[in-house]
C-alpha cells in the first residue's frame, strides 16, 4: 500500500528516531511508576493496613480510580464507535487517539481492583468458583468481553497503517520493526475486496463495542446500585455512570489532542475545528450528565428518608467544596466556555476539558466515600481513621502510577504505530478532492 511521504513522516514522528525529550519524559514517568510499585510492595508486605481504608470505608481511592479509568475507556468505545458509525468526516485525525485511550485505560482499570482485594493470590477463584448472582462476576465477564472487543476494533483500524509502513521504502527503522509490520499487517494489500471486508468488519465492531461498553459501565454502576446503602441504592446509577463515563472520555480526548498537537506539531492535522467539534460534544454530554446528577441528588434531598438526609447533610458539610467543584463548577464551567463562540479558543477548550476531567474524578470520590462513612448504624468509634477516610501515600503513589503507566503506554505505542491514522487521513484527502 502506498501513501503520501509527508503524511507518513508527519504522523509517525517517533517511529524512526527517539528524541531526548521522549527519553526524559518516559523515564520521569517510569520513576513515578516505580514509586507506585514500591507502595504496592509495602501493601502486600504489611497488609492493607497501610492504606486509608478501614472497616467502614472499605473501598477508597482504588475503587474510585477503577471506575474512573473504566470510564475513560468510553472515549474510544462511544466516540470513535459513534463517529465511525455515522461516518462523521472530521473524526479521522482524532479517532485513533480515542481508540488508544479505550484500550489503554481498559488495561489499567482492573489493576486498581487487584490493589483493592485483600487476597491477590486468590484472584483465580473468580474463575474457578464463580457465582453468577454476584455483580462482580458480571463485571469480570463484561470487562473481558470489552477488552477483546475493543482490542479487535483497534487492531482493525491499524491493519491498513501497518501495511502502509511495511510497503514504505523510505522508512529507516530496525529490521525487527519492519518484520513486525509485516506480521501485523496480515498480508493486507489494499485491494478493493480487502478494503470492503475491512470496512464491514469495522462497522460491525463499532456497533458491538458501543453495546458492550454500555453493558460494562452499567454493570459497574450496579455494583453500587444493587446494595442497600444510602446514596448508592439508586435506579438511575446505570445510565448515570454511562453518561459520566462518556463525559470523562471526551474530556481526556481533548486533553490528548492538545498534547499531541503541541508535542508532535500536528497543527496541520488537528485544527481548531476538531477542538470545537469535540468540545461541543463535551457540552452536550455535560448537559445530560448535569441533568442526571441533579435528578439523583434532588430526589434524595427533597424526600424525608432519614439516611438520605444524613448523607446529603454530610455532602453539604464535610464535602461541601468537593461537592460544589464536582457537581457545579465541573459541569457548568465547561459548558459556558464551549457554548459561547467567543470563548472557544483551543487553550480555553483544553482548560474546560481539564476541569471536566478532574471534576468527574472528584464526583466518583464523593459517590463512593461519603456513603461508606454514613452506614445505617452510626459509626461509634474512637479511632479517627475508622470514622473518616483519608488516603495514605500508598494510595496516592498507586494512583500516580496508574496515570504514569497510561502516559508510558501511549508513548510506547507511538514508537510503533502512527498516532493519527494514515489511511484515514489519506481517505480524507481523497474525499476532499472529490468535493
Amino acid at each position: 500500500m502506498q501513501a503520501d511521504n509527508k503524511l507518513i513522516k508527519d504522523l509517525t514522528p517517533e517511529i524512526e528516531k527517539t528524541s531526548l525529550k521522549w527519553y526524559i519524559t518516559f523515564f520521569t514517568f517510569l520513576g513515578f511508576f516505580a514509586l507506585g510499585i514500591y507502595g504496592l510492595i509495602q501493601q502486600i508486605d504489611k497488609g492493607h493496613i497501610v492504606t486509608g481504608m478501614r472497616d467502614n470505608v472499605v473501598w477508597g481511592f482504588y475503587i474510585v480510580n477503577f471506575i474512573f479509568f473504566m470510564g475513560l475507556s468510553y472515549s474510544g468505545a462511544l466516540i470513535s464507535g459513534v463517529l465511525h458509525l455515522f461516518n462523521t468526516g472530521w473524526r479521522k485525525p482524532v479517532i485513533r487517539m480515542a481508540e488508544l485511550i479505550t484500550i489503554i485505560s481498559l488495561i489499567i482499570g482492573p489493576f486498581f481492583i487487584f490493589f483493592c482485594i485483600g487476597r491477590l493470590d486468590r484472584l483465580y477463584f473468580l474463575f474457578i468458583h464463580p457465582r453468577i448472582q454476584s455483580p462482580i462476576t458480571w463485571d469480570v465477564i463484561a470487562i473481558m468481553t470489552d477488552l477483546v472487543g475493543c482490542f479487535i476494533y483497534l487492531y482493525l483500524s491499524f491493519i491498513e497503517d501497518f501495511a502502509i509502513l511495511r510497503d514504505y521504502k523510505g522508512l529507516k527503522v530496525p529490521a525487527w520493526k519492519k518484520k513486525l509490520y509485516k506480521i501485523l499487517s496480515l498480508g493486507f494489500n489494499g485491494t478493493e475486496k480487502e478494503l470492503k471486508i475491512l470496512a464491514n468488519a469495522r462497522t460491525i465492531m463499532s456497533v458491538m463495542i458501543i453495546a458492550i461498553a454500555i453493558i460494562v459501565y452499567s454493570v459497574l454502576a450496579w455494583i453500587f446500585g444493587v446494595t442497600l446503602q444510602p446514596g448508592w441504592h439508586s435506579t438511575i446509577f446505570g445510565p448515570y455512570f454511562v453518561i459520566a463515563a462518556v463525559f470523562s472520555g471526551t474530556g481526556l480526548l481533548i486533553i490528548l489532542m492538545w498534547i499531541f498537537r503541541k508535542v508532535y506539531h500536528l497543527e496541520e492535522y488537528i485544527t481548531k475545528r476538531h477542538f470545537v467539534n469535540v468540545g461541543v460534544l463535551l457540552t452536550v454530554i455535560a448537559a445530560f450528565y448535569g441533568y442526571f446528577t441533579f435528578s439523583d441528588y434532588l430526589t434524595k434531598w427533597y424526600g424525608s428518608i432519614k439516611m438520605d438526609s444524613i448523607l446529603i447533610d454530610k455532602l453539604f458539610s464535610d464535602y461541601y467544596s468537593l461537592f460544589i467543584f464536582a457537581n457545579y463548577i465541573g459541569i457548568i464551567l465547561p459548558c459556558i466556555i464551549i457554548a459561547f463562540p467567543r470563548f472557544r479558543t483551543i487553550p480555553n477548550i483544553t482548560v474546560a476539558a481539564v476541569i471536566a476531567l478532574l471534576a468527574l474524578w472528584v464526583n466518583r470520590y464523593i459517590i463512593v466515600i461519603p456513603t461508606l462513612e454514613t452506614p445505617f448504624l452510626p459509626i461509634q468509634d474512637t479511632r479517627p481513621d475508622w470514622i473518616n477516610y483519608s488516603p495514605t501515600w500508598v494510595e496516592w503513589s498507586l494512583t500516580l502510577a496508574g496515570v504514569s503507566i497510561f502516559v508510558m503506554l501511549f508513548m510506547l505505542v507511538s514508537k510503533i504505530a502512527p498516532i493519527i491514522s494514515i489511511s484515514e487521513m489519506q481517505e480524507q484527502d481523497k474525499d476532499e478532492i472529490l468535493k
Partner: protein
Amino acid sequence: MKELEENESEMSSRRNFLKKVGIGVGAVSIAGVAGTSVIAGTKSKSGEKIKLLSPDGTLVEVDKDDIKPAKEIVEELKTEARKGLPNRKFVMVIDLARCKNARKCVEACQEGHLLPKDHEWMKLFLLQDDLSTARYWFPRPCFHCDKPMCVSVCPVGATYKRPDGVVLIDNQRCIGCKFCMTGCPYSARVFNWKDPEVKVPAGHVYNPEDNIPAVEGTVGKCIFCADNLRKNILPRCVTACPMGVIYFGDLLEDTITNSTETVRFSKIMLDRAGYRYREELGTLPSVYYLPPTQRMFPVESGLEGTDESIKGRYKNAGPR
C-alpha cells in the same frame, strides 16, 4: 507395617461408625484419629502431650506428633460446614430492656474466636431514634439474614447461607473484595487489614464453623458460634451475658433460652412486641429485638466502669 494396617482398618471402621452416628461428630476427633493412624509407629514421638476434647466431651491426651491436619479432613469439614445442622432454624432474641453495656458478650466472643482486640464481631451501639425518644444500648451480632445481601454479592461463594439459618464465611475461599461489607446494611463484617497474629492452639484444624485462624486480607463476622451449635452448646455471648440479655434457640422448636430461663419464642414476641432492626430493608434477619421498655438499668449505667476508650465511642451518640 502390621500396626499401620491395623490402624487404618480401625480408622475406616471408626469413620463408618461416625458416618452412621451422624454428621462428622467432633471435627477434631476425626482429624486426630486420621493423623494418628497414618503416622503411628513410623516416627519417634516427641513425648509432648496435648489435651483434646473428644466427641463425647471427655478430655483425652494425644502425643503432639500424632496430630497432623490432613487436607482432605479440612475439605470434609468444609463440606459439613456448608450443609449445616438438619432440622434446625436458629434464632436469636435480644432483650434491650436488660442491656447495660457490660460488654461481657464482646469479651467472650473475642476470647472464644481468638479475635484480635480491635475486632468485634459483637458490637455495642448506643442508639437514639430521635431527640424526643429514649437512648438505649443495642448489641449487634451478625443478623444471619434469610435474604442476606452479603451472600448474594459474594463473587466466589466464600460466604453462604445454610438451611439452619446460619451465614458463614470460609476464609480460605474469601478473596477479600469487601463487596459483602458494602452489601451488609448492618456493618456486621470486619476485615483483617493486617496479619491478625492468631495463636492457633496446637492440633487445631481449620473449619468454617469456627473461623480459626483469621486470615489476613479476608472478612470475618459473627458466626452464631456454629462450632458450639454442632456440639449442642449455646453461643458464647449468650452464656457470657450477666443480665441474660441474649436468648438463643430454634424457631422450629419455638423455644429460646438465655441459659437461665427458657421461653416460647412466639409468646415472648407477642408479649413484648418483638421486632427486627430495619425491617423495611427486607433482609429478614434471624435476630429479633425486644424493645427497651421498663428497663432494669438506666441507660447511663452503661458508661460506668468502662474505660475511657469505650466511653469515647459514645461521646457523640445522639438522635439518628
